[in-house]
């Protein structure tokens, strides 16, 4: 909302400098985003009067007006078509700063000879003054403009740019802001008096109003003005409208807009002669009813929309937009002027469904007081009589089925201090509230007051609302700063938070960069994860109003976005890349919010070390991915087993499920080459994925300490030859089944060479140790033989010769 300070001064004396005023308003909740000073560079520009106009001796199109400036006169050369003797104009002296009407550049005015005649200044256009872009004519000032006065004093202004919060529809008006200014600077508000002459015939003999839907229209007031002459509105009104960001149209429309800005009450003018049956009916729209609105669009109405109708058809969508049929036109001579109160929710729904934003709708939606209709209506009627030559019918129409009395609110000093943490006296409280127009009556005791909010404050209903008023008028900076005084509440930290933190720190330790990708993704991207296309099962959750096609679905896994991130980085990154994301995925559940498990997904690709003078550029592989997962789980005190699985996005022969205590909670594998192709990634990429919500319960609790044996260990190496199909895990399980074996490490895997086809060699380093005595070589030999026998019997293993 933009407000002219000059206009504001019609209702309140502005006693503060602009910066101070802006600061107080902002602190009190009316945020001043900035302000524009009109006339700040009008030095040397004064109000003048055209005292004489002589022809230019050498040019037909130029004239030589003489401008009276009070104590002196100046003669200039001027080419404007609208020079008129006696008109008041803005005169720029030599040396003044102006905007060049042709180039738009800022220039300093010099005395120049034009076709042989010296011009000692300039009569200015609006463009030259920086008021508008209009440069066809010189600007003519009102007849009462004081000659000789600096223009900045006469028509300079400051335009405040305000941000009004949705709870303060009353402040979407100049008077509303004036009330705030008054309260914040200890001044009084003076409202315009709306006095005008009425014609003899009463309004209700000429038109009547029937509210059929009082639930949606608590009040409908109207006046009738005839004999109007459509013209431009006066310059001062146009200037104020422009300053507030509204385009002047004609005197009738401008007056309705002016009063809306002044009082905050939207008004609507109907062409009286277009109202059929001379009756206004406020009702819900009929099924299938259609209205062509002011903007020329055909609007299909529905039964939950409120319309203003005459006897035959709808003539306006209440509070949202008027109909084209009853619009004020060049031919209009009589108007039926509406000032009504509508249900905010209804206006919101109707406006939203029709996609029609407007200044009126915005005000109605915020809930303006029904009490506002009459003052605004009287003011507008007065202006129509005064400025548009209208005659007002006798009286007003005022249908008010929804009148409600305001309940007083009891407020005590104790309540104020217990909420704010500071003691304000009853006088301070009453003083703040009274300055805002609240009515304060004695309460039940000396520390209480019974407060009734003024009608324009529709946002006030509770004691807390009053306390905010008190606090913001006295000043939030008067509230002290104290630390929470009560003891710290019981803490039950969520275990998932600790797990997430540990996982994040482990992975950064393994050299992974954390990324955060959008939770929303596209079907196209998700489908890239499928080597063979098929519908996703279950279907991911779709947005009803996606912003863009690539953010239409909630991700069912972290993979797609992470692979896209890898692909994007590959365009500028050579060498190894290790990325991880820890975040939620969204799995639909019938008739409920989706499940949102926290997932970990990591990707690794490229060389294990960056290129270095130490050499050794070895590529990361499946076992790096597995080693990282094993390391992570080991840090979390969890031991996993790895099982075969068939994840379609992964290389069929290079993937494993991560299983703990029989529960599968993740996967490790090489990305399927076709998937990598789809994401335009070359080289092998390894992925691991862990469901942290599934992992969480397994990480809780503590494993008991294992005593360290005091007795020496004996280490033996054992190279075995087995069939290629035998898995390391099978061998290891047999070796570790012997109680004296404390550790088994596989240190070599070999095939080919001298080994027969279909065989491989696995070499183990086995540590033997007893917790109770020193082992002898004989003890170990015995066990080693038993191990070999068992391996031979169960897996066909033999010692490598």
């Amino acid at each position: 909302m933009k407000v002219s300070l000059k206009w504001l001064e019609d209702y309140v004396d502005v006693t503060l400098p602009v910066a101070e005023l802006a600061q107080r308003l902002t602190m009190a909740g009316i945020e001043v985003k900035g302000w524009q000073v009109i006339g700040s560079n009008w030095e040397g520009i004064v109000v003048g009067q055209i005292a004489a106009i002589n022809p230019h001796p050498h040019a037909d199109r130029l004239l030589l007006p003489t401008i009276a400036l009070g104590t002196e006169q100046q003669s200039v050369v001027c080419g404007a078509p609208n020079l008129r003797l006696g008109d008041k104009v803005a005169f720029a002296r030599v040396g003044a700063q102006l905007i060049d009407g042709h180039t738009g550049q800022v220039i300093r005015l010099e005395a120049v000879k034009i076709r042989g005649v010296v011009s000692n200044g300039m009569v200015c256009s609006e463009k030259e003054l920086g008021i508008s872009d209009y440069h066809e004519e010189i600007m003519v000032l009102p007849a009462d403009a004081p000659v000789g006065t600096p223009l900045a004093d006469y028509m300079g202004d400051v335009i405040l740019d305000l941000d009004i919060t949705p709870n303060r529809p009353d402040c979407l008006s100049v008077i509303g802001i004036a009330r705030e200014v008054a309260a914040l600077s200890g001044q009084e508000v003076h409202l315009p008096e709306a006095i005008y002459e009425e014609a003899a015939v009463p309004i209700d003999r000429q038109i009547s109003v029937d509210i059929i839907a009082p639930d949606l229209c608590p009040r409908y007031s109207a006046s009738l003005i005839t004999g109007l002459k459509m013209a431009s509105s006066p310059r001062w009104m146009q200037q104020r409208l422009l300053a507030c960001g509204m385009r002047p149209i004609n005197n009738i429309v401008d007056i309705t807009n002016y009063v809306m800005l002044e009082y905050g009450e939207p008004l609507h003018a109907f062409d009286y002669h277009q109202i059929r049956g001379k009756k206004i009916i406020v009702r819900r729209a009929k099924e299938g009813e259609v209205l062509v609105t002011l903007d020329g669009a055909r609007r299909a109405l529905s039964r939950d929309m409120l319309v203003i109708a005459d006897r035959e058809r709808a003539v306006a969508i209440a509070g949202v937009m008027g109909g084209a049929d009853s619009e004020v036109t060049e031919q209009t001579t009589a108007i039926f002027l509406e000032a009504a109160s509508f249900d905010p929710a209804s206006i919101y729904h109707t406006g939203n469904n029709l996609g029609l934003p407007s200044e009126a709708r915005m005000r109605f939606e915020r809930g303006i007081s029904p009490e506002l209709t009459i003052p605004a209506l009287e003011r507008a009627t007065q202006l129509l009589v005064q400025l548009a030559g209208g005659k007002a019918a006798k009286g007003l129409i005022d249908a008010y089925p929804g009148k409600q009395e305001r309940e007083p609110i009891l407020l005590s000093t104790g309540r104020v201090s217990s909420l704010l943490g500071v003691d304000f006296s009853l006088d301070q409280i009453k003083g703040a509230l009274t300055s805002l127009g609240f009515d304060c009556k004695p309460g039940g005791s000396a520390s209480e007051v019974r407060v009734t909010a003024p009608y324009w404050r529709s946002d006030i209903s509770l004691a807390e609302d009053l306390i905010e008023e008190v606090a913001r008028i006295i000043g939030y900076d008067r509230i002290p700063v104290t630390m929470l005084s009560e003891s710290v509440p019981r803490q039950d930290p969520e275990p998932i938070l600790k797990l997430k933190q540990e996982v994040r720190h482990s992975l950064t330790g393994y050299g992974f960069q954390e990324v955060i990708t959008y939770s929303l993704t596209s079907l196209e991207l998700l489908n890239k994860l499928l080597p063979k296309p098929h519908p996703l099962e279950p279907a991911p959750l779709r947005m009803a109003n996606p912003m863009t096609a690539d953010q239409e679905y909630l991700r069912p896994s972290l993979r797609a976005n992470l692979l896209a991130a890898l692909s994007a980085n590959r365009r500028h990154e050579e060498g190894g890349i290790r990325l991880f994301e820890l975040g939620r995925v969204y799995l639909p559940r019938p008739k409920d919010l989706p499940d949102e498990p926290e997932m970990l997904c990591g990707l690794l690709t490229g060389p294990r070390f960056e290129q270095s003078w130490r050499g050794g550029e070895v590529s990361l592989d499946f076992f790096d991915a597995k080693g990282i997962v094993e390391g992570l789980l080991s840090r979390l005190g969890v031991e996993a087993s790895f099982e075969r699985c068939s994840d379609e996005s992964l290389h069929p022969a290079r993937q494993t499920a991560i299983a703990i205590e029989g529960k599968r909670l993740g996967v490790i594998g090489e990305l399927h080459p076709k998937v990598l192709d789809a994401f335009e990634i070359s080289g092998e990429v390894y992925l691991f994925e862990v469901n942290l919500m599934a992992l969480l319960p397994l990480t809780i609790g503590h494993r008991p300490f294992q005593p360290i044996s005091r007795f020496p260990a004996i280490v033996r190496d054992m190279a075995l030859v087995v069939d290629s199909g035998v898995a390391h895990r099978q061998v290891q399980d047999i070796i570790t089944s012997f109680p004296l074996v404390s550790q088994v490490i596989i240190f070599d895997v070999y095939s080919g060479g001298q080994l027969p086809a279909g065989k491989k060699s696995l070499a183990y380093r086995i540590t033997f140790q007893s917790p109770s005595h020193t082992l002898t070589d004989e003890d170990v030999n015995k066990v080693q033989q038993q191990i070999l026998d068992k391996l031979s019997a169960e897996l066909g293993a033999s010692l490598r010769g």
Partner: protein
Amino acid sequence: MLNQLEEIKQKAAQELEAVTQVRELESWRVRYLGKKSQLNGILRSLAILPLEERKKTGALANQVKASLEDSLKQKRQVLRETQLDTTIEKGHIDITLPGRPFSVGRLHPITQTLHEICDIFVSMGFQVVEGPEVEWDYYNFEALNIPRHHPARDTMATLWVDVESEGGERNMLLRTHNTAGDIRAMETMSPPIRVVIPGKVYRYEASDATHTPMFYQIDGFAVDKGITMAELKGTLYEFARRFFGEDRKVRFRCDYFPFVEPGVEMAIECLVCGGAGCRLCGNTGWIEILGAGMTHPRVLERGGLDPEVYTSFAFGMGIDRLPMLRYGIDDTRLFYSSDLRFLRQF
């Protein structure tokens, strides 16, 4: 024999002097102190000497032996030190060569910021809790005093999930603020409560340098008997002091949020211009950091708490702006670009 001993002593000393390598010491030792050495022969033959001579010779022989052993020990020490000095000298490396490039992982700057903020509030007795990102209209709006037609909904453009309730209305959404978690926390905990709720929020907004459809917020609230606005101020000032530094000025002004009354906006003095006014702060000198206030009585009621007994404050702030301000990042989209050239800087 005594002369012989003197000769041995001299010769041995000369030879030892000439030794330069540790490994040569052993042959010297065998030669002069070994079983077959001349000195040992003399010592063994002592028994056959007459008593007087035996005494004399024995004393000298033992003296020589001790002296040789001592020299050997000293020589060994000297040679060992020389040897180590040489090893050290040979071990020269060019320490200006780069280290082996281990892959370095980093946390996302938003994660780092969230950890820092949570730590500050945890130290003031707040507990971190999380809520669902896909939420019911009820928790995100309705219970927070934002019914369907409320104009405040327009300031939080909503992404709706494409499912409808039995009544045919959309009621599932991506939470637009973490205040959505407040009522849930009130429902499951009992006062006194102090919690902060960090996490992602979503808005139906086109991306540009200052907007992304997903971003991070942290919300917090405290409920107890006698919680005051002065304590809200104390809590938030303490946060600002620790996050932005001791000298950063803080401003508390009236603002409106439907779920608090009175409502507050907290701003800090602009980090770029220090309050003089610049492009970053829109020439106001202040940068808005968070919204807050005393929890609205109707919201407490919705959370199952009696507003006649308990008071509460609440606050909520966007996270993404904080690292932007701290590091001078000019485009918020970078956070979600996954661009390693960006992320590696934090």
